[in-house]
């Protein structure tokens, strides 16, 4: 069961591909925080990675941070192991934190079903947008920029125009 709108972001402390541990508190001074469930192996994620980097680049100096978390079971999907996450972040030049939720405890608290799946929080860390990054896996066919529109709204002290959309992507790979 995913977080419901206006719910406070559950705490986490997870290792990142940068070799440091990252907790929710580390982002306390960031007004707009997107936590995106992600992974390595999924073609939907790979198709959206460039847009994730672009969003971080475009809003990073305006009080926004994107944090990606992978909770996938690396036993069934070895491409999603922590070592592979480090390699992909390096190869793709990720400009956002990429964290590993190995025991899936953080995923159980947030309740993502897909990768990629966005949880966007305001300065009080209340959930204000949940769902897809935009409305098309094909970058050239995007019509609605849900995440960008929600970030813009928050940065201008407005309500996001759309609060919830169905995430599209691979399922989170839960441990059996």
């Amino acid at each position, binding site marked *: 069961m995913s977080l419901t709108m206006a719910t406070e972001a559950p705490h986490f402390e997870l290792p990142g591909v940068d070799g440091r541990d990252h907790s929710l508190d580390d982002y306390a001074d960031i007004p707009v925080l997107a936590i995106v469930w992600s992974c390595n*192996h*999924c*073609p*939907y994620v*790979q*198709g959206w990675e460039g847009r994730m980097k672009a969003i971080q680049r475009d809003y990073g100096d305006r009080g926004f941070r994107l944090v990606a978390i992978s909770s996938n079971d690396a036993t*069934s*999907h070895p491409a999603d192991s922590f070592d592979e996450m480090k390699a992909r972040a390096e190869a793709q030049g990720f400009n956002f934190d990429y964290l590993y939720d190995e025991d899936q405890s953080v995923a159980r608290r947030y309740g993502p079903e897909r990768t990629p799946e966005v949880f966007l929080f305001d300065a009080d860390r209340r959930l204000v947008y949940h769902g897809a990054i935009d409305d098309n*896996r*094909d*970058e050239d066919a995007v019509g609605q920029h849900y995440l960008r529109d929600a970030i813009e709204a928050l940065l201008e002290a407005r309500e996001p125009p759309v609060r919830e959309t169905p995430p*599209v*992507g*691979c*399922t989170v*790979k839960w441990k059996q």
Partner: protein
Amino acid sequence: MTVDFLYWAGCPSHPEARELLEEVLRGRGVDVPIHVREVRTQEEAQELGFPGSPTIRVDGRDVDPAGENEPPSLSCRIYNLPNGRVSPVPTREQIEEALR
């Protein structure tokens, strides 16, 4: 000619891929049944050599030979596009090439 369409329901790309396959077959005037098989377990994936969903084979040949030897897995399959991007479905050109 035999056309096999293998998919795993956990990946949302199969309806789009099947529609594309049907469209290409219609467009080329190929009137053959599509043998649809849902892959439900890892054991079935192993048995069928299923490298991810969807997988399309024409006369037993994968429409994307580059990806056919990926480890059998219940996951979305990655198709590499000519423009360097990736897609969860094959391209129209890949399907058409397999039908030639």
